[in-house]
């Protein structure tokens, strides 16, 4: 068994947060008498990730995903528990550790805002001490994969969100990090740009066997990029396992979508499963997962089926169910 690339053991991070209600009176009161609350952003989370694995890190807003990533990046000191990334303790911020990973935050920007992205690349080359030959090879590869060449000489402030995100990824990956923490890397991107980023990440993972921990609210990202998911909520681990296991565990049904050659009474369709909707000719039914095959076979023999498709429920639905159960 390989040593895990990332190991988190009972990681806890609490914040003391100043609290005040809206309004002038509250503002004045708060000036003289501060109220604080302890927020358990991460509360005893444990997991480990093997080298080369791509793992989805899911949870609703405020679940503790970004705080965990910040602990793993060494930005935050854990309140208790331990974290290890490539054998390093992140918050000690050893130089070798800082050279071996990257953190990309979709809503933030590390590029020099008023300068072309190329300037940031050159500064990163110097800071990460990337030899010239290696830098040129790496840059050419990133520019080609991310289709960056038209934007290299434009000030970052003049780039579109998608163009900026691609430049951001290039800046973050020039030093060939072995671990990638990606916090909403496709946030706000259109479908084409998001697909390009996903393609690139898959490719990077295959080429460099990088370990990736990814948070995203876009389930397409999770489904396309990862097999394993870790789900947290209110700072606590809710699930850690295969994406299909998560679906099996939380949604005991599948969707059967049918098109028929003639209208069929909804009551008749109800004999096969729960009718989600129907216009008589087409229908969507929910059936028990372990009875899917048998039900589909019965439908084919007893109904005037022209077309039939068996689908998994939407991952958004799966995640909603996980959190609804808490």
């Amino acid at each position, binding site marked *: 068994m390989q040593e895990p690339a990332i190991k988190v053991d009972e990681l806890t991070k609490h914040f003391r947060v100043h609290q005040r209600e809206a309004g002038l009176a509250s503002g004045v009161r708060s000036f003289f008498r501060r109220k604080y609350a302890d927020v358990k952003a991460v509360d005893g989370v444990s997991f480990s990730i093997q080298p080369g694995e791509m793992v989805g890190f899911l949870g609703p807003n405020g679940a503790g995903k970004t705080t965990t990533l910040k602990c793993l990046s*060494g930005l935050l000191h854990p309140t208790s528990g331990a974290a290890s990334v490539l054998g390093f303790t992140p918050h000690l*911020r050893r130089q070798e550790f800082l050279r071996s990973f990257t953190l990309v935050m979709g*809503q933030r920007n590390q590029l020099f805002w008023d300068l072309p992205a190329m300037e940031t690349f050159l500064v990163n*080359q110097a800071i990460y001490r990337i030899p010239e030959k290696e830098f040129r090879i790496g840059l050419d590869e990133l520019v080609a994969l991310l289709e960056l060449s038209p934007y290299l000489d434009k000030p970052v402030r003049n780039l579109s969100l998608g163009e900026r995100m691609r430049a951001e990824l290039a800046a973050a990956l020039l030093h060939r990090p072995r671990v990638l923490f990606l916090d909403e890397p496709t946030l706000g991107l259109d479908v084409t740009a998001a697909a390009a980023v996903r393609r690139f990440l898959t490719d990077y993972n295959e080429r460099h066997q990088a370990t990736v921990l990814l948070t995203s609210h876009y389930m397409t990202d999770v489904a396309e990029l990862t097999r394993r998911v870790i789900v947290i909520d209110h700072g606590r681990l809710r699930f850690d396992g295969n994406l299909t296991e998560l679906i099996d565990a939380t949604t005991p049904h599948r969707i059967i979508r049918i098109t028929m050659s003639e209208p069929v009474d909804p009551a008749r369709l109800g004999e096969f499963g729960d009718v989600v909707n129907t216009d008589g000719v087409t229908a969507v039914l929910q059936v028990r997962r372990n009875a899917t095959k048998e039900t589909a076979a019965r439908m084919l023999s007893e109904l005037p089926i022209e077309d039939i498709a068996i689908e998994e429920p939407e991952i958004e639905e799966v995640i909603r169910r996980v959190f609804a159960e808490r």
Partner: protein
Amino acid sequence: MIAVYKALLRAHIGIGLAYRTRLTVWVLTSLFPLLLMSVWLAVVDEVGPANGWDRSDFISYYAAAALLWHTTTSFLIWTWDSDFRSGDFSFKLLKPLDPFHQYLTQEFGFRTIVIVILVPLLVGITLLVPALHYELDLLGWALTVFAGLTGFLLNVVMAMAFATIAFWTTQAGNIYSLWWGMGAFLSGWVAPLPLMPPIVEATGRWMPFRSSMGFPLELLLGRLDGAEIARSFAVTAGWIGIFLLLYRLSWRRGIHRYQAVGG
């Protein structure tokens, strides 16, 4: 490290040159010391030389103060404060380079632009305005430049030490303003220190503020003897050491408290 400084300096000079209006307005703030100069000239016109300082001395003092104001004053704490609250500080922490170097090069970059613009301007004015005179030998000029440089370094290190207060208070700029405001009277900025009451002058000579203003200016005007020059450099070096130590100690304790807000 030279390559890192070179790359960061190039980038920060580029940022400084990105907005022409901002740069022009910034350079125009050099005129502020000239307002103080006009007050002193009015005094001299009315009551004669003040404590041995005549019109020419004040013109020479404040013309050079205009350049020093831009080259030695550190605005680092405001950048730090803004970075701290916006979350940009986290990106500096993620790099395998102490944020100290990142902020220092940023300050150096902007100063380089100002030097390139203001020094030729000041040399031109010196040649055209007879009242301006800096009768120094080569060593005197070298010592003045060195004093300006060490004064700048002291201001940066001092600002960095104060900036770490943000680990506890999220914002440190206002505390620094209070300190710096007090310093304006002790630095030679409001008035040359030799013209201040003796207690203020004596205090000022041991405080860190004079190192970046009064000391290089008095040196430039040829008003300091060898012993005073050596003592002033020692005071500057001592304060650099003290603030560097405070910065390191405060950093070590404060970094545990960093909350990485803003994304």
